[in-house]
């Protein structure tokens, strides 16, 4: 298993735990009517992006058909970029999104925009590298 795959898969396991914690917090926030704390959307994205998507990227990078003899896993640098961008984006989201009261402050507006762009850029890099390796045999 290549190093980048191990990074993706181990990080995805951490997000699976975090997502479960956030789902529990979302339930508690709803039950106890905690004002100003709304973690459900964040929990969903920790689950779907942090856990499921990163697991798929990691395993896909390991198992997809080889790109070429010289570059069997395509452009490895793109996967590292994807890893860093996706996780910076997710952490930025984690800091701001559960607190709607903060959304309109200028620093958090910037952080939300950064989070969206970073996650999308990371995903684009990984998709590009994996799409190169879709081969019919």
């Amino acid at each position, binding site marked *: 298993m290549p190093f980048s795959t191990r990074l993706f898969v181990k990080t995805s396991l951490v997000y699976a735990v975090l997502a479960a914690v956030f789902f529990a917090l979302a339930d508690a926030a709803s039950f106890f009517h905690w004002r100003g704390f709304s973690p459900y959307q964040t929990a969903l994205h920790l689950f779907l992006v942090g856990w499921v998507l990163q697991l798929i990227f990691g395993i896909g990078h390991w198992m997809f058909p080889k790109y070429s003899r010289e570059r069997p896993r395509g452009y490895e640098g793109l996967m590292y970029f994807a890893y860093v961008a996706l996780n910076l984006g997710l952490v930025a989201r984690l800091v701001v999104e559960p607190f709607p009261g903060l959304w309109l402050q200028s620093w958090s507006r910037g952080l939300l925009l950064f989070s*969206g762009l970073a996650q999308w850029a990371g995903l684009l890099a990984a998709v590009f590298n994996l799409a190169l390796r879709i081969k019919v045999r």
Partner: protein
Amino acid sequence: MPRWSAIFIATSFVYLVLGSAWGAWLLATKGTTHMAGLPWSLRAWHVHAMLMGWLTQFIWGIGFWAFPRFRTSRGSVYLLPWVWGLLNLGLLLSLVGTAVRSLSLRFPGLVLVALAAAVFAWHAWPRIKPPGA
């Protein structure tokens, strides 16, 4: 990988890129006062694109490739164009229906997506079997 896996996986990547661009836009607009604008009126489609267009379509592509075979064949392969067509036509109808707020487009679209899931299950069911069966 087999041709239909490549088609499903490549199409799922298209939904992943488009659906997540939509999601990034939604997230960015949380920091503005425009949360009622276009991206939010199509939020349901972001969910459909990501869960059915990307995740489910990708899993079906991998499933068709990796599930156990019958000696040399992957079973009822003729069903795969139907699955792909129903799913993607359904998602397209649901996008247009959501955009123009037409239940008469959106609902049939979602029914087609459900039919695609049923047809894939019909294909995959006999391939989920013990070794040698």
